[in-house]
């Protein structure tokens, strides 16, 4: 299936229409890029440079919340395990059994324990476990169903009932497009935090009844928890297309109730792909996937959101495992899917520390980009957010302190 749209969650590293034009075309784009790492902005038009400070956020509330035994970075800070087997994609076919075996090698390689003991390290049998996938590029580069199968096999063989497993993403229609359906996963929950009416978003219909209630609120508004939010001093646009896609405008990005009230643990399964000169992997999959009203955050906060959203208890104390799916990978053109730059990589990465995991994967994708002749900008701004995470005690953002193990 050809992806219907490249919009959505994968617009994160870039600015959106409103931001672009509000800031004056190309200069607006520069604003987005200039503030990639939350640094100040200079418009160069031979006028006095205008500085825009990084907007305030409620990160202090997150850091004040007491940690638990499961809080990030989990039991293996800085440890990243890589399992590679090119045969898992031999002759264009996916070898599900081999992927399962790779997954098991990765888990045991990460923990140093067998599968059952590894399960016990992260879960209890009464847990409700959410598997956060990335369904954005269906048919090209979304989380592979076979990887999710392997995770479910592990969880259920350790005694977790299927009804206690929920595959989730922010958008329900994307899950369906990527093959995460009740038919494919009987007994497993499939939940999007929200819906979005694509036809209305693309201007193909003026009928908003599929997403907008008569009282002017989004039909998915009740799926978000007004008591758990990421606040940033940036207003979301107030127009209907924005509301359709983002459920709320204003300055609050609410966490999905799925995370705050239902799930007790989360396994994060992003894909291995670039986002310009940065990456769109573990921390972005969860950072922009757990809350609504995110487009407003791209320009002023960008990658900082990948640190600050996971710093809140709804993620920080539940995200116990990250598996970066590099069975297929994309080295250029991301975060949207670009077939030309997608390649067979046959690799899975494991870590409890998503920031260390992202730093390892960032380093690897930069090498791949160079090998493929892509001009790469290695400016420190593209990894500054990982060092920020280390400062907050959420993970390791220094390659020297990372243990990258190949099993």
């Amino acid at each position, binding site marked *: *299936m*050809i*992806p219907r*749209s*490249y*919009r*959505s969650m994968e*617009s*994160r*590293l*870039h*600015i*959106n*229409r409103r931001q*672009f*034009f509000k800031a004056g*075309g*190309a*200069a*607006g*784009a*520069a*604003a987005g*890029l*200039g503030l990639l790492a939350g640094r*100040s*902005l*200079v*418009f*160069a*038009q*031979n006028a006095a*440079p205008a500085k825009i400070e990084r907007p305030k956020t409620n990160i202090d509330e997150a850091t004040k919340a007491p940690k638990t035994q499961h809080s990030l970075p989990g039991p293996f800070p800085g440890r990243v395990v890589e399992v590679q087997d090119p045969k898992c994609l031999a002759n264009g076919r996916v070898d599900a059994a081999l992927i399962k075996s790779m997954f098991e090698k990765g888990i045991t390689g990460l923990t140093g324990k067998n599968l059952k003991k590894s399960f016990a390290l992260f879960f209890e049998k009464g847990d409700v476990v959410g598997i956060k996938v990335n369904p954005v590029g269906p*048919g*090209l580069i979304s989380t592979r169903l076979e990887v999710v199968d392997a995770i479910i096999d592990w969880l259920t063989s350790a005694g977790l009932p299927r009804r206690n497993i929920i595959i989730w993403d922010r958008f329900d229609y994307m899950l369906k497009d990527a093959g995460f359906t009740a038919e494919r996963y009987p007994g497993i929950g499939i939940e999007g935090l929200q819906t979005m009416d694509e036809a209305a*978003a*693309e*201007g*193909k219909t003026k009928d908003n009844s599929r997403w907008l209630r008569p009282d002017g609120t989004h039909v998915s508004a009740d799926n978000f928890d007004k008591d758990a939010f990421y606040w940033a001093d940036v207003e979301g646009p107030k127009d209907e*297309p924005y509301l359709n896609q983002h459920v709320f405008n204003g300055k609050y990005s609410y966490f999905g109730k799925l995370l705050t009230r239902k799930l007790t643990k989360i396994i994060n399964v992003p894909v291995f792909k670039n986002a*310009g*000169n940065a990456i769109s992997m573990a921390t972005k999959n969860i950072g922009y996937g757990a809350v609504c009203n995110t*487009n407003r955050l791209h320009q002023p906060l960008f990658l900082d959101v990948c640190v600050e959203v996971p710093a809140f208890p709804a993620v920080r104390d539940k995200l116990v495992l990250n598996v970066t799916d590099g069975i297929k990978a994309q080295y250029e*053109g991301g975060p*949207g899917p*670009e*077939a*030309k*730059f*997608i390649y067979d990589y046959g690799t899975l990465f494991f870590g409890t520390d998503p920031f260390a995991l992202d730093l390892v994967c960032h380093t690897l994708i930069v090498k791949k980009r160079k090998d*493929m*002749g*892509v*001009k*790469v*900008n*290695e*400016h*420190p*701004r593209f990894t500054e957010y990982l060092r920020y995470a280390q400062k907050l005690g959420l993970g390791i953002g220094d390659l020297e302190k990372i243990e990258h193990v190949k099993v």
Partner: protein
Amino acid sequence: MLKRKILAACAAALAVASLNGGIDIPPGGFTPGWEKSEGLREFPGSRLFDYIDGGAELFLEFGFKRLSLQRYKKGEDELLLEIYEMESPEAALGIYLMKCGGETPIKGVDARNSGEPAQFTILKGRSFIHINNSSGREKLLPVMVELTRRALIGIPDERAANLVGRLPGQGLKPGSACLFRGPVGLQAFYTLGEGDILDQRGILFGVAGSYEDPQSGHFTLILIDYPDDIRAMAAYQNLAGHLDPYLRVLKTDEKGLVFEDFQKKFGTISLRGARLELKVGLSSKPPSPSRP
């Protein structure tokens, strides 16, 4: 009677063409069994964000007019045609060079292109075209070629100004040249500072290419030609005054400056009349901006 029929046919064709702003979208049945699977979708100007919100800014920076999108289907197989109409042939070339990767031309496509079974990337006149085959099945290659052929028919073959020709040929790595018209494009390969740091004002094209030089090793050369010396001087002063904090100035003179970057590599910025010339990624420290 025949003349009247011909005139009517021409009028109908013109009407279809004008509906699509001159772009002739291949009809269903362009090759046996392949039909349109949904109506034509169009995204003019800023509405491009509705299609590629998160990647549209590069198109807009180069100068974008409209995207026409058409799906075709035969059984389970599906192809997606995307025609991006740009402001000028140079704008289309700029996007093409940014997007094509290492060029692998497909036989039978009568325009500059790079392709493989999952995607063709094509440049003709002011149009930048993608043909997507997400299944990646090689058997669809002949259909993709035919779809391309039909899509190209209505597109005038305007030549872009030879901006890439500004780069000296000696030492230039094949396939490394690219254009940029502002900070989004520049940021793809280097960060000199925030905002429109090279004062391109969304109008001036810059050109860049990678070089291998026996003395300097590998480096990237960036050139921007301004309308006159005064504009070039103003751009230089703006750049020098707002250089990225990760770039440490080592030496300055009236013609430019030498800096060291975050990877302990070196760069030069040289003002040469109405031209700004930058070399970045130099492995050894140049003695002066004018003699890198």
